[in-house]
């Protein structure tokens, strides 16, 4: 079984350099800067409203290499968070009342200190969400993860771009759909995705191509009906997430000749209501090396928090970060287009 294709880094692609991506986003097209457009919300600038989600990217290592991955994650990536940096995250978290910790990657489970970190976060009394690609739950040495998740009441959020096997495999790799279904059955058997179990299992839809996601609630009904009918599997919520022009999705847009039309669509569908509710306002994103970002997309573009806010977890200052001004570039249009998009799905 070959799940992985190639990362931009392994191909020595020019876009493996984050600054090359920023250069394209800022200068390839003559679009109104997002920061200017944001003023249509009635607010002068995009400022955080208080951190509720502490999102930790524990590394770029992954057993898959999905075509749309903004992280450019894959089996060849070696950047993973050390236990020392995790301790700094825990120290920072302990000094706050931030209720939710969102652990992402890569495949976060492949970080050798993942389970230790989850237990330590739970010991601080915080809710833990983890973004699992599902296929990792079937890999050697990881098969007991569903039980681990259940034991620690970890909320599991997983990508399944479509209930059609061919569409999912197109984006995520050969056999990913069938293996994802097998993993979901294991989670369901423990109560995940079942009403009343207290074990939350949410799915993520990303469009398989250069278009925006459909209405989230309508699509959730389709997913529930089709996945129940075809595979007898269940889940709680569906998050419809827009692909942002970052990482391998940016490379796809450029290589397929869709970049200009896609960016134009994002700009033309700018929605002030969605823009006001973007997730960077209540999130702080921590990179594998401890640097701080406004979101995971900014992290992959290496755009650290700015405007005087502390940039590393060792200098974490909750009060300053709670009211920081957000660093924006043209990719931000992706979170504000149509119904909006966040790690928790549609906004408006």
């Amino acid at each position, binding site marked *: 079984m070959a799940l992985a294709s190639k990362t931009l880094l392994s191909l020595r692609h020019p876009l493996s350099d984050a600054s090359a991506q920023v250069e394209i986003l800022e200068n390839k097209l003559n679009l109104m800067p997002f920061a200017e457009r944001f003023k249509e919300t009635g607010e002068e600038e995009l400022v955080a409203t208080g951190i509720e989600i502490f999102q930790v990217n524990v590394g770029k290592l992954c057993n898959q290499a999905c075509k749309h991955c903004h992280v450019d994650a894959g089996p060849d990536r070696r950047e993973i968070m050390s236990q020392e940096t995790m301790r700094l995250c825990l120290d920072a978290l302990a000094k706050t009342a931030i209720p939710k910790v969102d652990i992402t990657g890569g495949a976060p489970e492949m970080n050798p200190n993942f389970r230790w970190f989850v237990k330590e976060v739970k010991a601080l009394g915080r809710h833990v969400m983890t973004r699992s690609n599902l296929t990792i739950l079937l890999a050697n040495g990881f098969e007991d993860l569903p039980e681990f998740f259940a034991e620690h009441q970890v909320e599991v959020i997983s990508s399944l771009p*479509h209930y*059609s096997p061919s*569409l999912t495999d197109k984006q995520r790799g050969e056999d990913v759909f069938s293996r994802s279904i097998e993993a979901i059955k294991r989670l369901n058997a423990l109560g995940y995705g079942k009403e009343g179990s207290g074990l939350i299992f949410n799915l993520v839809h990303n*469009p398989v*191509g250069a*278009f*925006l*996601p*459909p*209405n989230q609630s*309508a*699509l959730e009904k*389709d997913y529930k009906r089709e996945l129940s009918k075809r595979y007898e599997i269940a889940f709680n919520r569906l998050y419809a997430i827009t692909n942002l022009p970052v990482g391998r999705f940016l490379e796809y847009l450029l290589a397929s000749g869709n970049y200009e039309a896609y960016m*134009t669509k994002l700009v033309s569908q700018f929605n002030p209501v969605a823009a006001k509710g973007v997730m960077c306002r209540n999130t702080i994103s921590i990179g594998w090396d401890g640097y701080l970002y406004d979101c995971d997309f900014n992290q992959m573009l290496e755009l650290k928090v700015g405007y005087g806010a502390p940039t590393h977890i060792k200098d974490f200052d909750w009060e300053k970060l709670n009211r920081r001004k957000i660093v924006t570039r043209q990719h931000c249009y992706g979170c504000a287009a149509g119904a909006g998009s966040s790690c928790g799905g549609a906004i408006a």
Partner: protein
Amino acid sequence: MDTYYNPSDLAKFAEVGEGNKELMNKFFSWYNAVFAEGALSEREKALIALAVAHAVQCPYCIDAYTQESLSKGATLEQMTEAIHVAAAIRGGASLVHGVQMKNVYQKLSM
């Protein structure tokens, strides 16, 4: 002008209203109401539009409603079935006129 149809012209649709803004505004107001969720879902309406776009063979509409169908969550299988419906009605509409041919034939034949 190299060709009558240029993809970038689709974005200029609203400019057609320059000669009479009032009529164009009325058109878009009605148009947007037509495609809003109602007794039919937005996706069903997008698929109907895609089928009609093929029947009237409008390249602008085919481009726009392929994108719209995808954005409403339609699959390639659903979109293909929709254009088969258009093709079947077009083909059937030709074929059913065979009754007229038959009528004339019967009148003229011994």
